[in-house]
């Protein structure tokens, strides 16, 4: 598609074609001029040397037989076809012999030795015609002057050829420039225009549209592929955003309604100060829960958007796991279980300590919350009334090939295989966990953190129980071996 004439001259293709045209024409002209000049010089030198040869042979004649012999020789030479120009004049300038019809007299008075170009008339058939010649005058003893010249018609013809070829070449260049322009407009600008058109459609709301990739592997394909990746990312983010707002609409309204009802009830039943206090206390708890939920949602959204702000730093996942294990070891024990940490370090990763720590604490929180003793009454509970806990919870950190596996294993009821996919979605809570406190956001965050780090959350059956593994890619050593154990500022 060729744009309208007004825009035609502003297009890159036109400018490019123009530039190429000017540059190549200039180059060609220079080349031709150079060659023609050298050739003309060469021809001139040849003319000069043949004139010089004739003069010296005629001078030789003069030395041998005087002016008479020169005249004789000139007469003979003049009659040859395509003869040189000859003229022998006496001291008064009168022509003795020669084949030149009319020549400016001044030429004969030229200083000796230097060839000059003059125009002369020659009888060509019956008509005297103007010709150009290169002549040289030689003074013979006794006042005689000898003029020898050669017609430069050959050289002139050559110059004509050159001039013609220049015109031809320029014509060819212009035509080629036009062809280039059309070609560039068609192929390059056409594709740019296609891209612009697609972009306009995307801007106007057709987010699913993608730029065309021709498969030729050229730079436009590269560009289109990159832009398509970008568009996919943007679309994913938009979808994420929409999901979050949907989630907020659905799942934050419930606790808000509860809060509102509680306050309304308190207002209606005047139960005295104690009653009000109780209602207000419960409302604050509701509000706190809402805030917590909101924070969790925002955090997930930001992690998913990959904009948690902190760039990923070189870290030792083993140290992170050890820290979290140390924090949770007494907690699990208090809840009646034991936490075993099996950390094989160092485990170099590029990550965000705060997020990975939080992911691990979420997994441990889940283990504590859901894991029940594998057999009835098997491990001796420490007498607390905390929710009955599994005997053992395990935190493993190890390297598997090019991956770091941070695994939390419990021996509770686990999650049915069919639900593994579903539980990482926001607000998904399985039937039997509805009675336990929680937001249904824990695993969503873990999964988002994993993805932010280029890893994944893998759930497996621990027979019985759940093994939740945060899989992170190993950081490949790039010179610096320094380990940064903290990302937060105190």
């Amino acid at each position: 598609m060729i744009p309208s004439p007004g825009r035609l001259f502003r297009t890159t293709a036109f400018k490019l074609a123009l530039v190429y045209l000017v540059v190549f024409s200039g180059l060609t002209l220079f080349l031709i001029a150079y060659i023609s000049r050298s050739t003309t010089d060469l021809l001139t030198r040849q003319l000069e040397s043949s004139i010089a040869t004739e003069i010296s042979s005629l001078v030789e004649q003069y030395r041998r037989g005087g002016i008479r012999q020169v005249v004789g020789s000139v007469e003979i030479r003049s009659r040859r076809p395509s003869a040189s120009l000859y003229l022998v004049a006496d001291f008064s300038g009168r022509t003795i012999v020669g084949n030149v019809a009319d020549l400016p007299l001044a030429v004969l008075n030229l200083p000796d030795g230097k060839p000059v170009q003059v125009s002369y008339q020659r009888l060509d058939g019956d008509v005297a015609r103007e010709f150009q010649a290169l002549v040289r005058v030689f003074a013979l003893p006794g006042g005689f002057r000898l003029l020898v010249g050669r017609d430069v018609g050959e050289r002139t013809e050559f110059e004509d050829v050159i001039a013609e070829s220049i015109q031809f070449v320029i014509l060819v260049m212009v035509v080629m420039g036009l062809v280039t322009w059309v070609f560039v407009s068609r192929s390059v600008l056409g594709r740019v225009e296609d891209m612009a058109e697609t972009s306009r459609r995307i801007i106007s709301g057709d987010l699913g549209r993608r730029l065309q990739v021709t498969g030729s592997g050229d730079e436009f394909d590269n560009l289109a592929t990159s832009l398509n990746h970008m568009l996919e990312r943007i679309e994913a983010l938009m979808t994420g955003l929409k999901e979050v707002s949907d989630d907020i609409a659905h799942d934050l309204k419930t606790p808000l309604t509860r809060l509102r009802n509680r306050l309304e009830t308190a207002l209606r039943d005047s139960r005295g100060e104690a009653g009000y206090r109780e209602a207000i206390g419960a409302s604050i708890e509701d509000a706190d829960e809402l805030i917590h939920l909101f924070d969790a949602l925002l955090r997930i959204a930001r992690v998913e958007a990959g904009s948690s702000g902190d760039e990923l730093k070189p870290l030792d996942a083993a140290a992170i796991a050890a820290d979290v294990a140390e924090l949770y070891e007494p907690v699990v024990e208090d809840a009646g279980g034991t936490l075993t940490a099996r950390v094989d370090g160092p485990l170099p990763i590029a990550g965000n300590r705060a997020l990975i720590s939080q992911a691990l604490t979420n997994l441990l929180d889940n283990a504590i919350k859901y894991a029940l003793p594998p057999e009835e009454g098997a491990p001796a509970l420490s007498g607390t009334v905390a929710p009955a806990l599994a005997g053992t919870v395990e935190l493993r950190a190890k390297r598997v090939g090019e991956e770091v596996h941070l695994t939390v294993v419990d021996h509770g009821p686990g999650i049915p295989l069919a639900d593994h996919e579903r539980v990482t979605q926001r607000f998904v809570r399985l039937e039997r966990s509805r009675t336990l406190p929680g937001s249904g956001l824990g695993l969503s965050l873990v999964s988002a953190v994993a993805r932010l780090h280029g890893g994944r959350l893998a759930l497996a059956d621990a027979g019985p129980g759940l093994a939740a593994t945060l899989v992170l890619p190993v950081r490949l050593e790039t010179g610096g071996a320094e380990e940064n154990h903290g990302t937060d500022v105190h």
Partner: protein
Amino acid sequence: MLRRRLRTRHGAGRRAMRGPPAKWSPNPVDGVRLMTMRVLIIEDDKEAASYLTRALDEAGHASDHAADGDAGQQLAEAGGYDVLVVDRMLPKRDGLSIVEDLRQKNDRTPVLILSALGQVDDRVAGLRAGGDDYLTKPYAFSELLARIEALARRNRPGDVDTSYRVGDLTLDRLNQKVTRGGTDIPLQPREFRLLEYMMRNAGQVVTRTMLLEHVWDYHFDPQTNVIDVHVSRLRSKIDKGFERPLLHTIRGAGYMIRDTVPG
């Protein structure tokens, strides 16, 4: 208003209403709160500001309020405050730039930054600008109070004590040793740091979040009450078998270490 009862000492002539910075008890670990803080609140939300002013007044602290960045900057530069509570987003002037300005003028008044932005990078930006602590809205007042009291105390000279003492409990920071009534109490490294932080803030409420941040360097709240478990373990080590408990739970706020029964 409390500040009317305070006599002018600092900044005399500049601001007649200005009182002296809080006077600290010469023995900061005697467990009795003897101080009154002067707090400047720079916050554009009128409701939030008046809530804060009232709550601080009830807690025995005097406070001034500036409703925009320029006014806040002027009051802060006039000086004489123990703690500044600065909202991050303010009309006329950004909260962070006020803090940066103060720090450039070598004003070391502790600053707590309040913000609705709670991500780690926002926190880092706040602290980098020269803030000393960062609290995300919405917050519980008990959390804010505990933090500004800790900040004000931190600014007092002589904070670099090599040992702390509360009642008959001593903590030797150099030798990493804890004794009570002459008996050695062996502690795990993390327990030691937990006790160290609480004793540095003896007589002050420390919240669970503060402990998580300062002792574990975690800036998020795990669902389970992990801190309670760690504190109760520590308590069983330092209080068990002794007549007077030193480590107290402050309901709805956090913990406090001190020699008297909390009132």
